[in-house]
C-alpha cells in the first residue's frame, strides 16, 4: 500500500469505510477518551513547526503489515502470524488475550476487545457477513480487507487466471475521495505501488527498526514528527 500524504485531506472517509467493512463496534466519546476505541485505520493529526509557522498534517495509519513483524514473534500460541500473502493475520479463536503482541508492536496498531462488542439493534442486520465478529478478550487488527482478497482469488480461479492489479482493493483505498491511497502487489515491478514505492518522496515509518513495513508514505521534503513528536 502507498499513501500520498501530500494528497490526504484528513477527511476520515477511510476510517469510516474500514469500520463499516470490518464490523468494528461503535464506541462512545467516553470510551474513546480511555483509549478503548477500536479503529483499524486511524488518521493521526500532527502539527509541524511552531506558531506562526504552523502546519497541520495527517497521517492515515492502517496496520503496516511488516515483513519482519515484532508482534508475531512474541505471540505464545501463534495466534498472530505472517501469512503466505505477506499479511499479518490473527486467529481469533486461538488468541489467549495476553496482549503481548499489542505491547510489542512499535506502531501500536493492534487493538484489544475490552468488552463484548455491541451494535445498535438497527445495525445488527447490516453487519458484513464476510467478516467474523470478534469475541471479548482477543486482539484484532487491520487485515488489508483479507476477505476481499479471498473473493478476488475465487473469481480469478473461476476465470482460470492469476490475480491482476485492481482485482481487489481494501475498503479504505476504495473510499479515498482524494485518491491518496494506492494498493497492489509490491513484488510486481509493473504495478503502480511498486513504482511509487521507489519514488524519491517515499519513506516508511520507523524504518530504522528493521520491521520492513509494506505501507509506504509519500511526502514532499523533510518529514518531521515521526521520531521527535
Amino acid at each position: 500500500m502507498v499513501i500520498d500524504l501530500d494528497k490526504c485531506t484528513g477527511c476520515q472517509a477511510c476510517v469510516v469505510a474500514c469500520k463499516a467493512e470490518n464490523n468494528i463496534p461503535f464506541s462512545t466519546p467516553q470510551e474513546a477518551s480511555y483509549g478503548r476505541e477500536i479503529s483499524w485505520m486511524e488518521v493521526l493529526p500532527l502539527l509541524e513547526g511552531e506558531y506562526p509557522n504552523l502546519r497541520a498534517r495527517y497521517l492515515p495509519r492502517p496496520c503496516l503489515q511488516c515483513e519482519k513483524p515484532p508482534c508475531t514473534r512474541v505471540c505464545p500460541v501463534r495466534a498472530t502470524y505472517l501469512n503466505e500473502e505477506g499479511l499479518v493475520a490473527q486467529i481469533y479463536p486461538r488468541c489467549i488475550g495476553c496482549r503481548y503482541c499489542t505491547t510489542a508492536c512499535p506502531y501500536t496498531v493492534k487493538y484489544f476487545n475490552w468488552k463484548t462488542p455491541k451494535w445498535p439493534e438497527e445495525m445488527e442486520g447490516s453487519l458484513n457477513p464476510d467478516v467474523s465478529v470478534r469475541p471479548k478478550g482477543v486482539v484484532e487488527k487491520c487485515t488489508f480487507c483479507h476477505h476481499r482478497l479471498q473473493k478476488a482469488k475465487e473469481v480469478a480461479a473461476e476465470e482460470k487466471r492469476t490475480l491482476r492489479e485492481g482485482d481487489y482493493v481494501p475498503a479504505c483505498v476504495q473510499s479515498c475521495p482524494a485518491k491518496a491511497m494506492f494498493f497492489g502487489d509490491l513484488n510486481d515491478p509493473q504495478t503502480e505501488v511498486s513504482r511509487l514505492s521507489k519514488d524519491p518522496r517515499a519513506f516508511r515509518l520507523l524504518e530504522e527498526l528493521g520491521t520492513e513495513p509494506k505501507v509506504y508514505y509519500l511526502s514532499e521534503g523533510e518529514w518531521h514528527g515521526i521520531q521527535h513528536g
Partner: protein
Amino acid sequence: MDRMEEDIVLLEPLKRTGKGFYLAIWILFSLMVWAFYAWTYQLRHGLGVTGLNRPIFWGFYITNFVFFIGISHAGTLISAILRIFKAEWRRPFTRAAEAVTVFSLPFGVGSLMIDMGRPDRFLNVIKHPQIQSPIIWDVCCVSTYLLSSCIYFYLALIPDIALCRDNLPHASRPRQMLYRILALGWKGTERQRERLEKIIGGMSIFLALLVVTVHTVVSWVFGMTVQPGWHTTIIGPYFLVGAIFSGVATVAIVMAILRKVLHLEVYLRKAHFDNIGVFLLCLTLLWFYFTFAEYITTIYGGEPSHMRVLLSKFSGDFAILFWLMFLFCFVIPLVLLGNRRTRTISGIVVASIFINIGMWLERFTIIIPSLARPRLPYEPGTYFPTWVEGSITVGCFAAFIFLFMLFTKFFPIISIWEMRESREKTLAEVGERIRSYLPQGAEGRSGTT
C-alpha cells in the same frame, strides 16, 4: 540440658492458637473473598472493568506478576545459596524463606492468568506453543521453578513432619494421619539422613541456577521487544538484583514478625538480623549501581524515543512514583542500614517495608511508562487502576499471608532437624574447617573444606 526438649518448644504454635490468629485469618479471608468477587466480575464483563487501555495494555497485574516472582527468590536464594556456601547462620530461617517462595509463586503465576483476556484458553499455551515467544520461556521456567521449589521445600520438611508425628499425641486424628502420610516413614536413620542431605545438596545447586534463569527470563518478556526503556541488555541482571533485594527484605519482615508473634527470640537472634541488614545494605548499593548504569546510558545517548520515556519518569506523569521509588529503594535503606545505630531489628524491618514498596513501584515504573510513551508519539496514554485491579492486588497479598499463617499452624516454621544438626554435628565441623584453613592444619587434611 536436654536438647531434644529444648527444640520441642518450636512445636508449641502447633498446639495452641491465640485469638489474634483467628482475627487475622478472618480479615485476610474476607479480603480474599472480596478479591475473588472482583475477579469473577472481571471474568463476566471482560478486562474493560480495569483501567487498562491502548497503549497501556499492561498494568497492575503484570506488575504483581513480576513482584511476586521477585519475592519468591528469597527462599531459594537464602536457603539454597547460603546452604551451598555453608553459611551456618541460615539455619533458623531457611524454612521461613522457603515458605515465602512456595506461597508467593502461585500469585505470580496467578497474576498472569488474571491478566489474560481469555483465561479459558490457557491450555493453548501447551496445545499451540510457539517456542520463540518469551511468554513460553516464562511458562517453562516458572513452572519448573514452582515444581522444584515445592519439592525442595517438602524434602527439607520431612524430618520435622516425622517429629510432629511422634511428638503431638493430642493432635486430632486426621491431623495425625496427615503427618503419618507426609513423613513417608522417616525414622531418622543414618542412611536416610545421608540420602536426604545428598538430594537437598543437589537440588540447592539446581535451584540456585534456576533463580538466575527465572528472573532473567521474566525480564526478557520486556527486554526482547524493541520498546524504549525495555529494550536494554541490563534488564535481566537488573530484574534479578531487584528480585533478590525485595526477596531478602521480605524474609527480614517475616522473620521479625515470627520472632515477635511466636516468641522466637532465642532462635532468631540479633546476629541473624545484623547479617541480613548488612546483606540488604550491599543489595541497596548494588541496586543503585544498576539503576544508575541504566539511566546514565540512556541520558547520554539521548535518543528521542528513549528520552520521552525517561523524562516521563524524571519529571513527567510518573515523576512522583519514580522518585518515591528512589527514596524507598535507595535513600531510606541506605541511611537506616548504613548506620550501626539504626541497623537494629526494627530499623531493618522499616527499611525492608520501604524496600518492598519501592520495588513494587520499580516494577510499575519500568513497565507502564514505556507503554505510555510509544515510539509513534501521537497517542500517549495514561493509566489509573480501578477498584477491580486494586481489590485483586490486595487479595493476592492477603492470600499469600493467609497461606503462610496457616502453614505455621501445621508445621514448625523453624527447621528443628537442621537446628539440631547444627548443634550436634556442624559445631565441630566448623572448627575443623577453620583449622584446615590454617597453615599448621594443612597436613593430612587436604581435600577437606
